[in-house]
């Protein structure tokens, strides 16, 4: 009897603690989402407000024949895939490297924290001016010192895409590095000793022993980095604004420009819905992948 009373009492207490946060989350995330879905069925053109009204699926139909939409979709895939792969490969390599040096791991950790804590918009501005500017930017100074030509890193369409990928990779590889390093440091050293006695070479040791052991950490990194890459905005916005033309206009940038530069909020909302659908699908797949293991 008393047990039952305390149990239901506990449930009520738990609800009282949890409900305020739940209400806030429903009001600030779920309700706006419903509103977004509704908006995506509307024509809302702030530059021509007299044309506003219900449009049905017109916005979605329009997407099919909108080359700028397909361009942004392709760029989103390239941007997400390349930044995630680069972060994981460089992050894992660097973590293995740092483990080999007997001293200075603390310094490495501090150096890695620096890019992570900076605001992406500031990182974008920094790269646009001090790092990638033609002739006097750090990269061109390096190239010229090596006797190579300077390049217009953000002005040339193809180089601009490479540049924004590099910026994202620069800022977020430390995340992969730190997580993998933490995972590697927690492994028992005798595993490696045994393999060394077995005369496995470095690559075999990595593939057959290290990689399976750090696999959970690698998967966490992949999941989180994909989510962040899919919502990347500020650094690209600051570095190129999506340009030149639409060369770096990933779906985020396109939805933003459509909504707040061209003031076509209805179409912008339908683009945002596609972005949302992609995010949900990717996270669902990734979590399935983790469970399946």
């Amino acid at each position: 009897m008393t047990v039952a009373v305390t149990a239901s009492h506990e449930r009520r207490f738990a609800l009282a603690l949890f409900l305020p946060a739940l209400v806030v989350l429903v009001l600030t995330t779920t309700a706006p989402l419903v509103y977004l879905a509704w908006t995506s069925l509307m024509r809302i053109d702030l530059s021509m407000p007299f044309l506003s009204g219900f449009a049905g699926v017109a916005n979605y139909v329009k997407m099919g024949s909108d080359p700028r939409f397909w361009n942004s979709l392709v760029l989103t895939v390239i941007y997400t895939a390349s930044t995630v792969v680069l972060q994981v490969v460089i992050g894992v390599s660097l973590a293995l490297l740092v483990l080999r040096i007997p001293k200075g791991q603390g310094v490495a950790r501090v150096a890695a924290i620096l890019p992570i804590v900076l605001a992406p918009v500031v990182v974008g501005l920094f790269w646009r001016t001090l790092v990638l500017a033609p002739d006097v930017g750090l990269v061109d100074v390096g190239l010229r010192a090596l006797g190579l030509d300077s390049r217009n890193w953000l002005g040339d369409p193809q180089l601009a895409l490479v540049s924004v990928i590099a910026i994202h990779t620069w800022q977020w590889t430390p995340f992969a590095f730190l997580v993998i390093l933490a995972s590697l440091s927690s492994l028992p050293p005798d595993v490696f000793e045994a393999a060394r006695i077995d005369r496995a070479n470095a690559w075999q040791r990595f593939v057959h022993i290290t990689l399976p052991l750090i696999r959970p950490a690698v998967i966490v990194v992949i999941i989180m980095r994909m989510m962040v890459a899919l919502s990347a905005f500020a650094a690209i916005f600051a570095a190129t604004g999506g340009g030149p033309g639409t060369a770096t206009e990933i779906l985020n940038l396109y939805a933003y420009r459509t909504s707040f530069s061209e003031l076509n909020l209805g179409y912008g909302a339908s683009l945002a819905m596609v972005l949302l659908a992609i995010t949900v699908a990717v996270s669902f797949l990734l979590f399935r992948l983790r469970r399946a293991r």
Partner: protein
Amino acid sequence: MSRRPLRTAAWAILTALLLAVWVVPVAWGLLTSLKTERDVLAYPPRVIFEPTLANYRDVLFGSASILPNLASSLIVTIAATAATMLFAIPAAYALARLDLPGKRSSGFYVLATQMLPPVGLIIPYYLILQKLGGLDTYAGLSTIYLTFSLPFAIWLMVSYFEDIPREMEEAALLDRAGRLRALWHVILPQARGGIAVTTIFVFLNAWNEFLFAVVLGGNRVRPVTVAMYNFISVEQTLWAKLAAGAMVAMAPVILLGLLAQRHIVKGLTVGAVKGGGRT
């Protein structure tokens, strides 16, 4: 490894070179902020020059001072952080320790809200705040900041509450202290460290936010991230001042990041480690 000192040294040098890729741009920004604009554009770049604090004087006290923007950032960030912790701490405790009905789905819901891309939400926020008269207000922007900080804070706090030994609260409950008193007098003091770390990360994320600030802010509410962006649009070539402004704007987060450096891996991977729904 110590058997081959030469090889170890080679690895160390390689590692240092790779790490330099992260440090050099920031160090370069610091150097640039101490140069005159003429020295900035010199080729070959000057590493030795007469340092000046004129840029800092300008960005802080000149005609386009960023002090009002720093104040703006501070108000939004503190308001958002305080509200976040107020809602997150009780909710996280319920998720971590109590018999909350629908715990699994509640936890998953919180995690799912964390994954929403901000660009997907900015359009409804803009339209809703416009209708409510909340554009360019501190209340409006700080409330919107809850959307990304609250799920994050809840999950991080859950992991800290789970680290507290159960015996502590059981003892308090046997004492007939009542659940609320047990939470207040026993659990919260135990979770102090976790609360501090969570507060730092929430503050850091809110301070660095840009998209919501640029769309939902305005002349009155203009955080420093937006001010930096506007600066480069207006003053295309004044890089030394940009660098000085960036150094000032980023000083708080760099300090907080270093302060919380031992906890940063946990802070960064929260949520994904557990992978949603708990039993």
